């Protein structure tokens, strides 16, 4: 890297959040507020079939009866759900045939994000479905994937083109009754990604989607549905950045993964939304429900690097329904300043000989609070199932907090459940050792932290691993104390 830590620091001081710019694009925005009419408006704007509208309305009815959960170890001002615009789409003049027709403003935004589609196209192996606000704007590599029968498109497109798949699978892993935010998402979701890998197909490239919250005051309600049919394989990357905002922005996504018999899904996330400023003002509320279900001998692997958001509430989970199925969760969660994260996973063992692994690495700096919350549940029929959990916490200052809430429920005597946990503070001795060898403090911190998180970072696809390392560095600037 040609860039020094000091330069980076200087830059960060002048520019509090790297991706904090606003793109000036006319938006097609729904009026502020939430009621049945808004739900209907969203559905009709998207020309949805009646069954989907009914689904939304049922979810909305349920949501109205629910209460916002308060068991997480986070404190925040509850969002005013009547003060959010629930739909915003860049105005489309006509169907786009090529990149030349894409709004130049939008292309500029993508360039600032370092993910210009031209570049992505050239870089072999990555198909990008760019989501700006709520509507997918440009999609690449579609034809190539199409030849294999792989469907990779926006959720809205899938509703039009593959309604049978949506109808069959949507809500089967995360029903709208699941929780408050999932119900809200089910009622007002605007768009998201859809992916279907046919039987026996190994997806030849990493599929990636960049999410970006843009329009001021619009919550983003993404919906992702990923279906890996029997004996197929897919690796999916999700990376996020959002512009800097003063008021809190709500993000309540739902991600559903379905791995049919002998299929494998690898789902990786780098989350770098605006965490709020140094004094804890602003920042994104990230309340996400992510869950996958495994069939016979299938495997779902979640890898996440969480550095952004003011408040994170997120538990990517696996329902190990099929015998011999495998669930994995690898997580690095960094909190700095006043950030709060309550994240972890649920491994629900139902089938026989199911196996799960949980590796969670929390890094807390500043005055932040970082919690791991996990459930390992071994059902009655989950004979010979196994779990291994390791939850490590690294403290950078004496004002931050690290918390571990592991829940284990075991109903089958043949199961093996292991849990290991450590808490350590970044050592002055380690830092001095590095500095004596000529490695500056900032660089030393990044070296030590990356070493600590290596087990997880190694699970990320190559191109993401580099980005993630850089993110860790940026997130922990000047944070030792």
């Amino acid at each position, binding site marked *: 890297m040609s860039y*020094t830590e000091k330069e980076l620091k200087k830059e960060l001081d002048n520019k509090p959040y790297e991706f904090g710019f606003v793109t000036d694009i006319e938006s097609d925005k729904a009026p502020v507020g939430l009621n049945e009419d808004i739900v209907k408006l969203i559905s009709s704007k998207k020309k949805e079939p009646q069954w989907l509208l009914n689904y939304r309305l049922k979810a909305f009815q349920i949501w109205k009866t629910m209460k916002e959960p308060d068991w997480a170890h986070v404190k925040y001002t509850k969002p005013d759900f009547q003060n959010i615009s629930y739909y915003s789409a860049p105005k489309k003049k006509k169907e786009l045939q090529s990149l030349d027709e894409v709004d130049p403003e939008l292309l500029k935004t993508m360039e600032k994000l370092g993910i210009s589609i031209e570049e992505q196209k050239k870089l072999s192996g990555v198909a990008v479905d760019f989501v700006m606000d709520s509507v997918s704007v440009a999609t690449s590599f579609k034809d190539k994937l199409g030849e294999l029968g792989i469907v990779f498109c926006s959720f809205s497109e899938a509703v039009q083109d593959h309604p049978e798949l949506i109808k069959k699978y949507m809500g089967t892993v995360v029903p709208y009754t699941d929780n408050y935010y999932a119900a809200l998402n089910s009622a007002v979701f605007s768009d998201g990604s859809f992916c279907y890998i046919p039987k026996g197909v190994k997806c030849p490239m990493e599929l990636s989607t960049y999410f970006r919250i843009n329009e001021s005051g619009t919550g983003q309600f993404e919906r992702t549905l990923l279906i890996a049919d029997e004996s197929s394989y897919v690796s999916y990357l999700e990376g996020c950045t959002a512009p800097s905002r003063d008021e809190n922005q709500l993000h309540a996504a739902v991600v559903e993964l379905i791995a049919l018999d002998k299929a494998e899904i690898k789902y990786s996330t780098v989350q770098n939304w605006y965490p709020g400023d140094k004094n804890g003002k602003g920042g994104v509320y990230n309340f996400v429900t992510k869950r996958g279900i495994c069939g016979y001998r299938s495997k779902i692997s979640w890898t996440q690097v969480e550095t952004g958001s003011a408040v994170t509430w997120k538990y990517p989970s696996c329902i190990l329904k099929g015998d011999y199925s495998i669930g994995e969760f690898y997580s690095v969660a960094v909190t700095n300043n006043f950030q709060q994260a309550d994240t972890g996973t649920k491994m629900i063992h139902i089938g026989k000989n199911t196996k799960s692994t949980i590796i969670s690495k929390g890094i807390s700096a500043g005055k932040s609070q970082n919690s791991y919350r996990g459930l390992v549940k071994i059902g009655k029929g989950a004979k010979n199932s196994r779990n291994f959990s390791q939850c490590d916490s690294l403290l950078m200052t004496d004002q931050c907090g690290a918390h571990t809430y592991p829940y284990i429920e075991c109903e089958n005597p043949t199961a093996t459940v292991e849990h290991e946990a450590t808490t350590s503070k970044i*050592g*002055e*001795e*380690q830092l*001095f*050792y*590095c*500095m*004596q*060898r*000529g*490695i*500056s*403090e900032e*660089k030393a911190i990044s*070296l*030590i932290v*990356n*070493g*600590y*998180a*290596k*087990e997880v970072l190694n699970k990320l696809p190559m191109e993401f691993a580099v980005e993630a390392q850089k993110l860790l560095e940026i997130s922990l600037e000047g944070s030792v104390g």
Partner: protein
Amino acid sequence: MSDILIEIKDLKCRIDNQNILQGLNLKINKGEVHAIMGPNGSGKSTLSSVLAGNDNYEITKGSITFLGEDITEMSPEERSWKGMFLAFQYPVEIPGVSNINFLRTALNERNKYFGIDSIPAKDFLKMVSEKSMLVGLDNKLKNRSVNEGFSGGEKKRNEIFQMAMLNPKLAILDETDSGLDIDALKIVANGVNKLKSSKNATVVITHYQRLLDYIVPDFVHVLHEGKIIKTGDKSLALELEKKGYDWLKTDAAI
């Protein structure tokens, strides 16, 4: 150009309101080997930490001049770039950071400071294999995390390997012999001797005369209550081995 590598003048320092160094003077020329001996708690390890720039110690008086430049207030990394190396008594473990990556980062940081391009991977690896032979460092250790799970002897060898890689002007070996068996001691001493030249100097901090059979000092200093109370040649070390420190302490008290 002067032959003085480092000059410490009337150095006083404290930690947690406890005075440790209490007016220490020492001058080291290029090409010399100095041994610093002394009873427990005399300030030997403090001296090495202070020379390396550990800011847990507060310097209350005096100065350190390295290659003609006052480095009393200089950061540890800058001292390192300028050619100071400390072989730690207790090398720390850095989990998940490979030895190789650690050293490459260290070298590149120094190159950056001097405005030199990063060392090409090929040259770096060649250097690694050359220098590791010097201390017979097991190949596997190079790719393992820094000092993690190393035996005591392996950690000390690794310190000398790092020293060889960084090629310092002033090497301070803080009780490098502690915890080493006789074979390992010979290997480590042999490595240090091979790195010696007319342009650099070595400070050996030790409790035992034995190491000085292998790394032969030009000067032996006795540190007591934060001051050098006696300086002699290598025969002083032998004398200390026989008589202990008490006779000197009494002298110093008078």
